């Protein structure tokens, strides 16, 4: 490791020298933040109008721009903020922080895209950043703002079933998405079987989805990287926001702690179906009985930051969220005997990150992070029966989970405007509980305690990467390499490694049309055993082992991008992705069964996806939104499924269209609509039937014969097309001490019968036919949001 760092330092030194040897150069560096809240702005632009050189701020708002000694005219810009122009003489290294004012407060200012903001300037393709304010405007089921469902409206991203928040990116499955909350992987992103996501939009600063063309700093998953960064907390004054909706309520508080150098944010959300039901339940319970229904989910985000000085900053952020469903009941008798029953199913994530930003020089930025992430699922059933002196107790518990500890260090080195170098390394320790049953029985004559099921497994995952984003005139490239290793311990001990080249290219034609291309390979060492239909908490994360090899993929993409009329971003991308060793349950296995180890229940095969994505986005003005279209093909092939023949992936969708439009009617009223259309999901249906005796008793001459149906080729049929229109109208009013928004909306406003699944049944006349089940008719919603 020491040798590698020495080599990296030498590379940095060499690049610095090569930049300096032509002309004397100086560096302007600092942080860019929101003037109102003090929040650092990610990917804000710093652009010198004279030299035409520029850079962007990193995840922590830091930028560094090295230019020849000269006077410079800097434009500092960020979408939704007033552009700031600064003239200064760069005759020495300068450290300067910039604060930008929100354009929302400056109605007269017409904010247009600065040259450096434009999509054609970016080297990276297949990457989308969705502003959180836009996410809050997009209509949602029951008015519950959902980050993941907004991302489903982007080209190349398919939703799963109706109302589900799983992301199927370019033919990949949800487990192939690396979801990072403040840099910490989140393993289960769903509440209530996938109908709501775990991310509370009030606590989020920005959301970025990368679908392909992965730079070398990303690794560990095949299909996408979703980065969600939490707000850091207002550094100037105590602020709050919250909402009351049909499903849940939220409250967020943020502000400085002592001085501007320390800030915090705490945000909580909880559903309250159980609380609303409590009085009704209480009225039904008789004397001597107690009954407690537990049916809720909650999220709690918290973050605290301290700026020691411009060189050192420390952040600690945490997230805790859980779903709980259960019943506690107790019946107490006059003689003191009782019968107690506790059934509970709960699952949830806990993440934590401790981050230290260290500005080593004005060109070298280091970020050191320690993280913890866990997801676990518990199913408990316990009975106690006390009669006289005796106490009989029986309990059964099923647990599964994954627990990670990780440490990583990332460097940003910006020797000059033509190179932006990132390098770093990480180590992660994974511990897996891939599903175990514990049975305990205690009574006067029985004492039984046993654990059955798959055993705990542990592994280490290592990564090392180096990438350089370089520019030469109209040509830009992001070249890098990501190396990873995975050591799984125990009976299935094995070591795997992978070296993954990453290439991103951009060439800007004279008419500002950018031609982009990318190639990347990816490796994934942990797998999710899951049902394809729902995001169930019983989903198991398991490691690659001697028998289950790591999943790998390579992807190539090409396309064009251009800004039209200064307001519209337009891009077209074509991609081809091939996946190896993807994991699926074998046909007909029971995923909580004990018959076999999990490795006996799964099979590995190949996946292939290719398609074309079109994206037209308008980010500014009174009317904003986007139009996305995807044409795609997604395939799977397993030796042990479908007789070894290739079949369409369940969420293979030939055409997928999404249109999102938001219009500010006046200062106080805005309307947002989202229309989606998708080719129907593929489905497996029965083809034929026959009768078979289930029970034969010759002695008593009893025979039970039943008819059974047999399915045909997997996913050989298509359900009807899916389409839906959702609308929100938002009424805003600024009160004396707070601002408030009333949002009235409707999901599936034209009440389309979208297919959820199809089964064979009978019609009203008793004839055999297929029947379609739909889930959500028109669902109106109302919510009240406030901010102070």
């Amino acid at each position: 490791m020491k040798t590698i760092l020495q080599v990296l330092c030498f590379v940095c030194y060499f690049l610095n020298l090569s930049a300096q040897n032509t002309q004397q150069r100086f560096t302007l560096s600092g942080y860019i933040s929101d003037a109102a809240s003090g929040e650092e702005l990610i990917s804000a632009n710093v652009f010198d109008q004279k030299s035409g050189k520029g850079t962007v701020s990193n995840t922590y708002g830091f930028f560094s721009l090295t230019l020849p000694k000269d006077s410079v005219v800097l434009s500092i810009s960020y979408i939704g903020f007033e552009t700031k122009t600064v003239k200064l003489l760069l005759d020495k290294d300068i450290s300067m922080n910039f604060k930008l004012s929100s354009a929302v407060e400056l109605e007269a200012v017409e904010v247009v895209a600065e040259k450096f903001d434009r999509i054609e300037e970016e080297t990276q393709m297949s990457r989308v950043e969705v502003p959180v304010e836009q996410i809050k405007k997009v209509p949602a089921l029951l008015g519950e703002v959902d980050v993941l469902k907004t991302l489903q409206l982007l080209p190349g991203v398919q939703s799963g079933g109706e109302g589900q928040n799983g992301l199927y990116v370019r033919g990949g499955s949800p487990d192939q998405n690396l979801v990072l909350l403040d840099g910490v992987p989140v393993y289960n992103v769903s509440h209530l079987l996938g109908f709501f996501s775990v991310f509370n939009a009030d606590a989020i600063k920005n959301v970025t989805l990368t679908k392909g063309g992965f730079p070398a700093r990303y690794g560990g998953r095949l299909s996408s990287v979703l980065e969600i960064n939490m707000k850091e907390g207002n550094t100037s004054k105590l602020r709050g926001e919250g909402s009351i909706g049909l499903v849940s309520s939220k409250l967020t508080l943020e502000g400085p702690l002592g001085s501007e150098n320390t800030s915090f944010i705490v945000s909580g959300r909880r559903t309250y179906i159980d609380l609303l039901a409590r009085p009704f339940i209480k009225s039904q319970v008789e004397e001597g009985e107690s009954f407690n229904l537990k049916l809720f989910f909650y999220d709690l985000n918290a973050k605290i930051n301290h700026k020691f000085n411009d060189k050192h900053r420390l952040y600690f952020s945490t997230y805790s969220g859980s779903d709980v469903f259960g019943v506690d009941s107790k019946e107490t008798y006059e003689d003191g005997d009782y019968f107690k029953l506790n059934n509970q199913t709960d699952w949830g994530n806990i993440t934590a990150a401790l981050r230290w930003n260290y500005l080593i020089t004005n060109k070298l930025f280091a970020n050191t992070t320690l993280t913890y992430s866990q997801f676990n699922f518990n199913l408990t059933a316990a009975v106690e029966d006390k009669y006289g002196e005796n106490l009989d107790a029986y309990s059964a518990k099923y647990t599964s989970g994954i627990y990670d500890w990780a440490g990583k260090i990332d460097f940003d080195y910006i020797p000059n405007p033509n190179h932006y170098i990132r390098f770093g390394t990480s180590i992660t320790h994974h511990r897996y509980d891939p599903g175990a049953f514990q049975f305990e029985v205690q009574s006067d004559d029985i004492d039984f305690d046993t654990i059955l099921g798959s055993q705990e497994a542990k592994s280490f995952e290592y990564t090392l990467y180096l990438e350089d984003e370089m520019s030469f005139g109209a040509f830009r490239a992001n070249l890098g390499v990501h190396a990873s290793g995975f050591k799984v311990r125990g009976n299935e001990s094995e070591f795997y490694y992978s070296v993954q080249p990453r290439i991103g290219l951009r060439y800007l034609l004279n008419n500002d049309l950018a031609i982009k291309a990318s190639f990347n390979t990816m490796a994934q060492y942990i797998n999710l055993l899951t049902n394809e239909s729902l995001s169930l908490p019983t989903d198991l994360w398991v490691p690659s082992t001697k028998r289950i090899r790591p999943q790998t993929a390579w992807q190539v993409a090409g396309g064009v991008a251009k800004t039209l009329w200064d307001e519209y971003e337009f891009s077209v991308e074509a991609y081809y992705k091939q996946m190896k060793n993807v994991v699926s349950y074998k046909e007909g296995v029971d995923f909580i069964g004990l018959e076999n180890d999990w490795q006996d229940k799964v099979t590995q095969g190949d996946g292939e996806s290719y398609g074309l994505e079109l994206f037209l986005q308008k980010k500014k003005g009174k009317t904003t939104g986007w139009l996305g279209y995807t044409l795609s093909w997604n395939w799977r092939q397993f030796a042990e499924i479908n007789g070894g023949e290739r079949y369409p992936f369940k969420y293979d969708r030939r055409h997928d269209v999404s249109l999102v439009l938001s219009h500010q009617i006046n200062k106080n009223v805005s309307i947002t609509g989202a229309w989606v259309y998708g080719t129907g999901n593929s489905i497996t249906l029965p083809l034929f039937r026959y009768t078979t005796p289930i029970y034969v008793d010759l002695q008593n001459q009893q025979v039970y014969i039943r008819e059974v149906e047999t399915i045909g080729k997997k996913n050989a049929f298509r359900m009807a097309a899916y389409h839906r229109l959702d609308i929100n109208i938002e009424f805003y009013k600024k009160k004396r001490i707070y601002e408030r928004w009333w949002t009235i909306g409707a999901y599936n406003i034209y009440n389309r019968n979208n297919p959820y699944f199809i089964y064979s049944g009978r019609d009203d006349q008793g004839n055999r036919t297929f029947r379609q089940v739909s889930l959500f008719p028109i669902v109106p919603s109302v919510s009240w949001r406030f901010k102070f």
Partner: protein
Amino acid sequence: MQNIKVIVLLICITALLTACKDDFFDQVVDVDIPEHTPALAVTCNLSNQDSILLAYVTSSIGVLEQENPETITDAKVELFKNGELFHTLPYIDQGFYGWEIEGLLGNENDTYELRVEKEGFESVNSMQRMPDQIDIISASFEKDGTIDPEGERVDELVIKFKDQKDVANYYKVEVYFEFTIEDITYRQDYYFDSNDPAVNFTNDGIYLPDIIFDGNTYELRLYAYDLFVDEFWENPALIVNLVHLSSDKYFRETSIRAYENSEDNPFAEPAVIFSNIENGYGIFSLEAVGPEYRIPL
């Protein structure tokens, strides 16, 4: 602002009107299903204790065809033992073919093959080996001997047997209640449940793979509710049979159970019913019933 009020009103009216639509959640749809080529579907489960060999023959039919699958009445059904024709099974009734042999089928490790031919259908066949008999070492019954998952006191039946090592074995447990009234002996199926996580329940009773006790002596614990024994009954007893199954029999029964569980369940992976009939559908299986174990009550 007036326009907004109109839009809100329209949303409310649309919501009210469309929510009243009949059968929103479940509707008939047209699906273009390819034509199905019928094939023979055979069910033949034989035991070492059988003296009557019985097979059921029918044909498959397209899923949307309105009529029911027809039983085949004129098929040629033959059972081969160790490669030689053992018996031809003539048609009896309602799709069943059968033949009564002298004595019992018996004989561990013999190989049997079932062949069925019918004009207009492709001939089908399947081969199986008779499993070994496994003896019960001991079995006991205790009134109120354990508790069920709800904490209620229940009767307990414990069955002890030795599993064969390094071979995947599959078992079925049959329990009967037997008693005599006026010299006539009655035998009834008696239903037991179990807290044992290794147990699989099927339509045909309690099934048990040896995954968690391979090669060891195992105590299977079952429970039942309130076994009633009338004081006038003579020789009341529980009769316990341990049945050693061919693996195909186990997979067939558990797959039927999975199929029944996945019926009308959109979240379940579609379950394929296990079939071991070449060129057709269905099952040919063998099982060896061990010596009866009698527990006097």
